[in-house]
C-alpha cells in the first residue's frame, strides 16, 4: 500500500515537474500567436521514430501550430494511470494514446474534449474511418478523439505443423465443427503440440475473444438499453460449450495462464493455430515462421464475425484553440500518405478506407505478406463492446466465468448465469 501511494505521488510530482519546465510550455490563446500542443504517444523504437518524423514534417508545413510529441514517459499499457494523475495535477497533454475500452470512463472526465462538431468538417472526411473506429471514438454521442490503430482477431496458423500432421489449411468458409476437428487433429500430446490457444487469466483478454463467438451465434452482450446482461442466452451457451468441449474433452486448447505465453509457444512451434491480431505479424515474420491466416470460423455459415479493438488518440480540452489545433494535426496525421508511414512502423491496419486505394498501399502489403487478409477481415468486425462505465467489471465477471468452464470447474449455463447476475447488479448502480 505504502509503495502504491508513493508511486502515485511520485507520478503526480513527476508529471507536474515535467510539464512546468518552461522550454516546452504549451501555450496558445486568442491573441493569434502560435499554438503549441502536447502529444503523449506511448510508443517506442520504430513506431516512436515514425511519429517523430511525421511531427517534424507537420511542424515544418504548419507555421501556426507546434506539436511537441513524447512518449509521455510511459507505454500504452500504463498510459491511463499516467494521464489520470496528470489530470489530477492539471498538467494533462492535448493528445494521448488511449485504449478504446477506456472510453466509457474517459467521458466522465471534465478534461476530455468534445470534438463532435470539429470532425463534422468535410476536410476531416470522418466517414472515411471504418465504422468500428468511429464507434469507439464516439461515447454517448460525443466524439472524444481519432481512431489511432485498428485491429481484429483472426486465426494465424503455422503451415509447417499443418503439413506435418497432414491436415488441410483452414478454408474461408470453415465452421465451428471444422475448427474443432482441425484443432483436435493437430494436437499431439507426445510432442507437446496444441491445436489452438485460449488465455484463462480471466482478464479482458479472456473475455473479448469470446464475444465474436457469441455474436456469430446470434447473441448480444447486453440488452439494447444496456440495462441487462443477455450473454447467458442459448447463443452464449452454444459458444461456451464449443470451447468447453475443445478444452476439456479434446484437450486441444493451450490454456495460457497469463495472456502473454501463447506468443512464445506459437513461435516455438508448439501451437498450430493462434487466435490473435496484426500486432503479432512483425514478431512472427522476424521469427521466420511459415505462417498463414484465416478468418474466424463461422457458427452456421452466415457470418465469420470477428472483434476489433480500436485504440484512440484521445483529445483533451485545454482551450478551444488548442483543441482545434489537435484536430487539425490528427486529421493531417490520418491522411493516407502520412498514415502509411506510421502503419509500416507499427504493423497496424489501415484506419481509413481511402488508405487501401492509395498508390503506396501496395508497398505496405509487400512489407507484410499475409496482412492483406487481416485488412479484408475488418469488414467482419460488425459489433463493438458496450461502452458502459461498468464494462471493465463486467469483463472480469465474464472472464472468470469463461476460465472456470475451460478449466473444467463449472458448466457453461451455470457460469454464464452467475456472470449475468453479477453484471445485472453492476448495471443497476448508475455510473
Amino acid at each position, binding site marked *: 500500500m505504502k509503495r502504491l501511494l508513493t508511486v502515485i*505521488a511520485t507520478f503526480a510530482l513527476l508529471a507536474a515537474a515535467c510539464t512546468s519546465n518552461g522550454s516546452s510550455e504549451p501555450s496558445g490563446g486568442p491573441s493569434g500567436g502560435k499554438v503549441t500542443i502536447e502529444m503523449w504517444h506511448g510508443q517506442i523504437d520504430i513506431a516512436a521514430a515514425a511519429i517523430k518524423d511525421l511531427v517534424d514534417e507537420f511542424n515544418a508545413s504548419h507555421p501556426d501550430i507546434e506539436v511537441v510529441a513524447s512518449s509521455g514517459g510511459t507505454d500504452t499499457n500504463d498510459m491511463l494511470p499516467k494521464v489520470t494523475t496528470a489530470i489530477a495535477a492539471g498538467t494533462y497533454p492535448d493528445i494521448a494514446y488511449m485504449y478504446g475500452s477506456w472510453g466509457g470512463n474517459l467521458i466522465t472526465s471534465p478534461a476530455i474534449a468534445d470534438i463532435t462538431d470539429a470532425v463534422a468538417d468535410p476536410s476531416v472526411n470522418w466517414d472515411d474511418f471504418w465504422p468500428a473506429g468511429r464507434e469507439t471514438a464516439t461515447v454517448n454521442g460525443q466524439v472524444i478523439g481519432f481512431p489511432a490503430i485498428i485491429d481484429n482477431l483472426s486465426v494465424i496458423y503455422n503451415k509447417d505443423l499443418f503439413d506435418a500432421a497432414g491436415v488441410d489449411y483452414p478454408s474461408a468458409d470453415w465452421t465451428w465443427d471444422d475448427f474443432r476437428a482441425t484443432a483436435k487433429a493437430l494436437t499431439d500430446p507426445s510432442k507437446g503440440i496444441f491445436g489452438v490457444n485460449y488465455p484463462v487469466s480471466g482478464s479482458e483478454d479472456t473475455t473479448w475473444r469470446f464475444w465474436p463467438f457469441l455474436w456469430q451465434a446470434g447473441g448480444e452482450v447486453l440488452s439494447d438499453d444496456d440495462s441487462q446482461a443477455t450473454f447467458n442466452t442459448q447463443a452464449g451457451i452454444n459458444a461456451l460449450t464449443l470451447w468447453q468441449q475443445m478444452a476439456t474433452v479434446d484437450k486441444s486448447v493451450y490454456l495460457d495462464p497469463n495472456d502473454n505465453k501463447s506468443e512464445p509457444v506459437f513461435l516455438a512451434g508448439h501451437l498450430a493455430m493462434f487466435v490473435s491480431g496484426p500486432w503479432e505479424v512483425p514478431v512472427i515474420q522476424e521469427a521466420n515462421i511459415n505462417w498463414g491466416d484465416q478468418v474466424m470460423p463461422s457458427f452456421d455459415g452466415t457470418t465469420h464475425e470477428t472483434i476489433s479493438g480500436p485504440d484512440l488518440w484521445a483529445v483533451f480540452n485545454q482551450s478551444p484553440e488548442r483543441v482545434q489545433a489537435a484536430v487539425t494535426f490528427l486529421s493531417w496525421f490520418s491522411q493516407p500518405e502520412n498514415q502509411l508511414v506510421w502503419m509500416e512502423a507499427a504493423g497496424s491496419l489501415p484506419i481509413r478506407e481511402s488508405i487501401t486505394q492509395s498508390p503506396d498501399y501496395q508497398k505496405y502489403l509487400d512489407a507484410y505478406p499475409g496482412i492483406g487478409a487481416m485488412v479484408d477481415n475488418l469488414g467482419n468486425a460488425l459489433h463493438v463492446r458496450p461502452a458502459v462505465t461498468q464494462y471493465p467489471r463486467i469483463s472480469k465477471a465474464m472472464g472468470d466465468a469463461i476460465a472456470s468452464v475451460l478449466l473444467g470447474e463449472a458448466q457453461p449455463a451455470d457460469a454464464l448465469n452467475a456472470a449475468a447476475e453479477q453484471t445485472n447488479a453492476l448495471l443497476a448502480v448508475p455510473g
Partner: protein
Amino acid sequence: MAQAALSADNRAVERRRRLGDNLAGWGFAGPAILLILGLSFIPIGWSFLLSLTNSNLVSSGRFIGFDNYKALVHDPLLAKAFKNTVIFTALYLPAGLVGGLAVAMMLSRRIKMIGFYRTCFLVPFIAASAAEGLLMGFIFDPDFGIVNSVFQRVGIPRQGFIQSPGQALVVLAVVYFWTQFGFNVVIYMAALQEVPPDVIEAAEIDGASKWNVFRHVTLPTIRPVTYFLMVWGVIETFQFFDLVYTTTKGGPLNSTITLVLYIWELAFTFFTAGYGAAVAYVLFFASLFVIVVGLLYGRRRGLAV
C-alpha cells in the same frame, strides 16, 4: 540579587543556544521530513478522502460518505483476497524463519568457497522479483515447464502448478520463499555473530550437547531478531504484488488474488479508485493491527527494541 541577574542572563544565553541547536537540527532533518510528508503522509490523507468518494481517478467523483466501507463487507472477492493473503503469509513465514536460520548457521561455518555460497543465497533476493516471476512462470509452466518434465522422468504425474486453482498459491509461496529468504539469512548471520562465544564455551564445558547449546543458548540470544523478522515478514507478505502480477495476475479463478493486486485492479482496471482506496485502508489497518499486537507481545516478553 546579582545571582538572580546572572541566572536570567544565563537563561537567555541558554535559550539562544537552544534555538541555534534547534535550527541546526531542523535544518538537517527538514528536507527528509518534507520528503516523508510529501511522499507518505499527504498521499495517505489524500487516499482517505478518495475512499469517501466514488471517483474513477479520471473524474473526482462525488462524496458518498462511508458507503465504500459498507460495501466491503459484502464483497466476495475482497474476502477471497484477504483469505489468500493470510494463507500466503502462513505458508511463507514459518518456512522463511526456519529456512533462513538453518542456512545462516550453515553459512556461518568456516568452509572453503564460503563467499561463493553466501552469494548464491543472496542473489535471488537482490534480483528484481518481477523478472524472477517471469522466469518462474516458464519453469512452472504445466505444459512446457522444466519441473513437470523432471517429474515425468522420475515417474511423478504432471501437475497443474500455476494453472491449477488448488496449487497456484502454494507454488507462488515456494517461489517467494526462494526470492525473499536470503534477507532472513543475512539478518540471522549477523545475529549469530552476536552470540557470545564464551557462553557457548561455558555450556560446552558443562557438557551440553550441540542441540542443547542451540536450544538454550543460541535460540534465546537471537530471539529479538526472530521477532523482528516475523513482524517484517508479515508486513512484506501483506504487500505481496509483483510476483503474482507477472505470473498469474490473480488467476486461475482468483485463486492467487492478493489484497494489493486487488487494490491495483480496483483502481486501474475497474475504474473504482474510491472503493480501491477503501480496501487499501483495510489493508493498512490490518497491517497496523498485526504490528501493534506484535509490539505489545514483544514488549511484554522484553524482546522489543
